[in-house]
């Protein structure tokens, strides 16, 4: 696949990596949240290259619109104490963690690099609201309903946990 799809992938991949790095390395949580926003938006763009139109929309709605906002709210709620020093933890454990993680993703990268699947042609409704909706409502109705219950429980739980107990 070449052309505009490839270009879009390169650009969005670049932004996604940079956003992720900012998220992980930023000293201030707010800056990290902004990095996460960049990461999420660029991934939403990348989803378009994968014929996942509905998910791209959901990515923007849920992640960018809800989760990142939620993060920002909490940062505001906590205030300046939300910021901790950039040099955190012991150097040994940090470098070990980094090395091990790099080892993992190198291993995965070498394995996937030798994976030679080719893009297949897709139906017109692949990844559209209609196609994915039909798939979910036909094949995954029960999990879908369970997810709604999960979200409900999470909302109730979040309120219960975050409620101040002093009064």
């Amino acid at each position: 696949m070449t052309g505009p799809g490839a270009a879009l992938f390169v650009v969005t991949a670049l932004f996604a990596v940079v956003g992720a790095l900012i998220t992980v390395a930023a000293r201030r949580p707010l800056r990290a949240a902004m990095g996460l926003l960049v990461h999420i938006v660029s991934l939403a763009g990348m989803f378009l290259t994968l014929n996942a139109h509905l998910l791209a929309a959901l990515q923007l709605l849920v992640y960018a619109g809800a989760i990142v906002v939620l993060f920002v709210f909490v940062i505001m709620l906590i205030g300046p104490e939300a910021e901790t020093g950039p040099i955190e933890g012991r150097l040994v454990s940090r470098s070990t963690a980094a090395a091990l993680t790099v080892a993992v993703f190198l291993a995965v990268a070498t394995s996937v690099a030798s994976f030679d699947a080719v893009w297949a042609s897709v139906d017109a409704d692949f990844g559209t609201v209609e196609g994915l909706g039909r798939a979910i409502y036909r094949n995954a109705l029960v999990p879908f309903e369970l997810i709604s219950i999960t979200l409900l429980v999470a909302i109730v739980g979040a309120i219960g946990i975050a409620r101040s107990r002093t009064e």
Partner: protein
Amino acid sequence: MHVHASQQLALLLIILFPLAGAVVNGLFGRRLPKSLVGFVGVGSVTVSFILAVTAFAELFALRGEGVHKAALTYHFYEWFSLTLPTGAEVPINVRFLMDSLSGVMTLIVTGVGGLIHLYSVGYMSDDDGYPRFFSYLNLFMASMLILVLGSSLPVMFVGWEGVGLCSYLLIGYWYENRDYAAAGRKAFVANRVGDFGVLIAMFILVGVVGSFEFADINAAAVGGHFRPDFPVWPFGVVPSIATVACLFLFLGCTGKSAQIPLYVWLPDAMAGPTPVSALIHAATMVTAGVYLCCRLSPLFITSDVAMSVIAVIGTLTALLAATIAVTQREMKRILAYSTVSQLGFMFAAVGVGYFAAGFFHVFTHAFFKACLFLGAGSVMHAVHAHGDADIFKLGGLRKQLPTTRWTFLVSCLAIAGVPLTSGFFSKDEILLGATAQIFRPDDVLMVRVGWFTLIGLTLAAVMTAFYMFRLYFLTFTGEYRSAGESSEGHGYDPHPHESPASMKVPLIFLGLGAIFAGYLGMPHIAPLVGWHLPSWWGGWMEASVAGHALPESMNVINIASGLAFAAMAIGIGSAWVLYRNKSEDVLAEKVPARLYALVLDKWRVDELYDAVLIRPIKQVATLVGRADLTFVDALLTRLPSFNARELGRFVSGLQNGVVQTYGMVLVIGVVSVMAMFWTPRAHVEGALEGDTLQLVAAPGLGYQYRWDADSDGEFESSWSTNRIYAPTYGPEDVREVVLYVRSRRTGAARHYSLTDQWTVLHFDRLDPGWRRIPSFLPIAARLHGGKVLLRLNGARVFGQTDSPEVVELHMGRGTGIENLLMVPRAKVQATVEVRNAFGNVSTASREMTLPDGYLPELHARLLPATKGVPR
């Protein structure tokens, strides 16, 4: 042949009554009144004695009817059976047998035992452990009766161990005293050493005879089954199996019957109550060894070497113990050494081949030695001496203890061998046996043993008379030397008193026995006058005991009687001169002081054993204990616990509550798993699926395979996930031709690689028979011209009569040559390459010999072409 008149239930009941008494007294004795405990104890043995008498009467009647080897048996049940290496099944029956030998022994055990039980009622009346004592004593009776009545070695061994146990329990009866408990242990350990000998002998005997029954063993000995030599030759001597078995049996006897080298426990055993000393350590248990020798006398008599050893050891024991007895100061100790000495007499009699005489001494000795011990007990009871009584603190007791004095005197006369007492007859018989050995013209060994025995026993007899009368005079004549003591101190009661009736009655009965028991076994020819006297004993014992015939020559008889009489006279006379009415040890002043001290110290044998055996063993034990402490405890216990503790500390350090640490451990786990799956695992097996040869590779997640069935470096298949591959092989794939040879006779198989040169096939290891048949020259095989050729060298093809020089073998097909089956088979090599999801590759290859059943017509074409071995 034993007469199975009927099942003699009485034999079982004789044993069961004391056993029941032991159970009742042992379990409920503490809650029963004392009188009932005594009644149960004495009553059970009395019933047992009455049953024994009736059984004996029946046996006697059988003999009267002229049945030669009369015996009563009771077959209780089959205990278990064992299988010999030869495959023979040996049943071990709980069967009881009363013949002339065990009948007499049963009477001794129950009769003397009953009297001693009665005596104990009075003697132990003040003791707290009264029920315990009677329980042990009854248990002893039951065990001893099992020992005596058992018709086979294992049953006898049950009794043998049982009496050993009771002996241990009763020696250590006053276990609060450390020395007494130690004495019990010593007896037990010494007996265990002997028991080991009995066990070994048992195994040897069952190996040779195939039966544990005494009757079968004796019949085998008479029938000459013990001729084969023992397979071990120590010091160049070739002992017969009979010798080895007899020596091991005798080792057991030295333990149980207190002979050199294991006699040391018996003197210490006097720590037990006096009735125990009388019953177990004088009258019955210690004679079990003699009984065993008599029981197996036909076996013993086949081995001159073993008999000589027994005679010499018996004589040495008699002498050694007698010398020690001469110097001792305590009543029971003197009697103990006297017992050891008299047991030596018995074994000397057995050793020179006069089993009946030895057993006759067992019989008479039971009476006078029991009487002596009970007399000593009576004295101790009278003066309130605990444990033992020092004769130099006694004296003049003839006035206060008249009954005890008279019975004691009678028994002393008997043991010293005064004419017309029982001891005279039995000791005379033993000396007669020893003298007869001297006059045996045929055997140098026997003559020497006879001389040694005769001289040794005569000296021992002199000392016997001497120390017994030393004991008697110092105890009963002169003045009472503890009269001035206060009864509060360590001395003896200043006012001795005669014992109660329950103690006097047994003394009187036993004293009468000491005089008159000997008349059962009067010499068959009276000395000097030469009258032929009726000797009931010899004739009675003949039925179950082997032995040499008694000598008829007047010379022999006169010498033996003269020596016995002279020994008695010298012994009593010197004791009379030295000790009558004396109060101090006169002998000590007349012999060198150091010698006297040495003998008084029992020749320091205990110290010798301590230095030579016990201390080295203890040192080894200490060393091993230290090794245990440093090796097992430190290395095997503390080190692992240290490891576990430190590991725990390290791991619990990881449990620090910080989420990142947990995450890190998780990542480490992921990396480890990935490292494990980094390279694929390659392994290939050949499998025959019907007629198709399949190569099967080991499975794995995401594995892909490609195959090179003939390992020529070119892969026949492309990558696929199929791990089973069915190749076809052609002649060009064969790496080697292998000739498989299997022996039809032995089932062993070997294989040989073939080349285009003749290969000689050696079948020695395959079938040892080939080497022994000289006509079978080595067979050779080669590949030639696309064929497998076999040069027969005279061997025949199976099922054919003529022998061609060369035959052709077909690949994958069997050809029989004599009793060997030969199959030439092709060998190939298969390789598989495996790739996993990481793209890593590994290979495995396997050499396979194509199976017999692999497509025969295809296999037949698999012979490599003319080149011989390819590649």
